């Protein structure tokens, strides 16, 4: 690339400008200009922890006190439904992976996240923290080919339930969004639910945009309004989920 021929301090970019600016369809000449490298942001207020910058290991199986048998639980789909209300904001105020829909994270997914971060993170500049628990919800499985009956199946594995708008991991440090985005995007795409890589500004902008869309809707009929007023006899076919979350995260 021709740019490598120029000295480092004056990297030039080629631009095209019309000879006669007034005529819209004028001839073009190429000229080299100085690339604008804007001043990098200051990270002086950010402190990186001296040790354990990478994600800690999360146990596959929760530890119960001795003598306690591992309890079996019901499916608990309610833990996935709807929107996260508590763990939805950034604690470190930089970058994070946020779930856009609910799902169950298995230990495999958790390891994938942990290894992905461990390989790509620059421990001198960045650190990462978990924002979810290690797997605790037991999932039972009856043996393959077994008939119905004989009680509930035995515990096969554990999962972590995650609701929509839940922060999965947070990454911070003396780094820009462009530096962390590639590997975080890679991790986000491999999660079992749609997830997004956000920075503080992006998250605030998205939330503000959502509020604006809700506010500026001129359609007097919203799903919520129809449910609450039982219009068109919708209470017949409505699910319990709809009565709670008003169709915001369907299926």
């Amino acid at each position, binding site marked *: 690339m021709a740019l490598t021929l120029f000295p480092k301090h*004056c990297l030039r970019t080629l631009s095209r400008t019309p000879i006669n600016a007034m005529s819209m369809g004028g001839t073009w000449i190429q000229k080299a200009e100085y690339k*604008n490298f804007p001043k990098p942001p200051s990270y002086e207020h950010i402190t990186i922890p001296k040790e354990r910058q990478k994600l800690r290991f999360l146990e596959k199986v929760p530890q119960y006190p001795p003598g306690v048998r591992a309890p079996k639980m019901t499916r608990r789909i309610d833990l*996935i439904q709807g929107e996260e209300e508590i763990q939805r904001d950034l604690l470190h105020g930089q970058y994070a992976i946020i779930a856009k829909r609910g799902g169950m994270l298995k230990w495999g997914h958790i390891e994938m996240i942990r290894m992905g971060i461990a390989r790509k993170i620059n421990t001198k500049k960045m650190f990462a923290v978990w924002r979810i628990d290690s797997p605790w919800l037991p999932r039972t499985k009856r043996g393959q080919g077994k008939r119905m009956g004989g009680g509930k199946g035995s515990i096969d594995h554990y999962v972590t339930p995650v609701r929509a708008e839940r922060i999965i991991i947070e990454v911070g440090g003396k780094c820009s969004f462009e530096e962390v985005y590639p590997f975080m995007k890679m991790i986000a795409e491999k999660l079992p639910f749609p997830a997004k890589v956000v920075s503080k500004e992006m998250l605030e902008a998205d939330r503000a945009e959502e509020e604006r869309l809700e506010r500026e*809707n001129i359609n007097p009929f*919203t799903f919520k309004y129809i449910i609450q007023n039982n219009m068109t006899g*919708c209470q017949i076919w409505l699910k319990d989920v709809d009565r709670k979350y008003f169709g915001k995260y369907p299926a």
Partner: protein
Amino acid sequence: MALRSFGQLLRTNFGLPLLQTVRHRTRIPNLRRPAIPHWRRAVILALTKPQYEDPLKDIPVSESCQKRENFLKKDEVEVNQFEQILAKEMLAKVEESNVIIVFHRNPMSEPELFANRIQLSKIGLYYHHCNNKIVKLALTGTKYEALLQLYHSRTATFLGTEVKIPRLLRMMKKVRGLVLMAGVVEGRLMNVTDLQRYAALPPLPILHGQLVGILHRPLQQLSQNLTHHQTELSGALGRYISDQTKTSETPDEASSGSNTEPEVS
């Protein structure tokens, strides 16, 4: 096994008991292949789709046109800090130099330009690396703003402290590819004709002498006018005397040749 609520008196279950038990199995929703909603639900979803006012509703096309917006945005140039630094440096150099020569630079290779630079360095003119954008940033708002008229096409700027214009004009024959356009010599913008006239000027002491002469001339004229008659008279008398001595001398010389005293008639 879930129970259906039996508060419904709609009687869709005609012929069936009021209380029925139904087996549901909760399923984790499949996000990759979402369930197609039932017709009734789909109708409600279509009905409740959010609608928004057209943001360009009352704005005339002359203001909302995107092409116009883009054209106006072209004038907004983001400030390049590096270019600002270069502009500052250039202005400092321009202000401390006595001579600024601006050439039109024809397309030439770097070795050719270097050869020209060697030639011009002999008269103390040194090439300044810059482009038209930097020059515009540097000189806009200063006393050198008039120079910006020259910086439209390919240019080469040479700065120096020694003023050697006659040598520069003679060197233009050797310098290939650089066309002299104008210069700023000792704070004065000059085009090529002005530079030639400047070069033809005699040295400063002579000009000083000329100026002194010009200043002295009225006084001289006045004294001349005052003593005009006296000088004329003395001159005329002198001429008359010389005429008389010549006439008295010539007949005596012819007769005797020894009598030198003139006879006064």
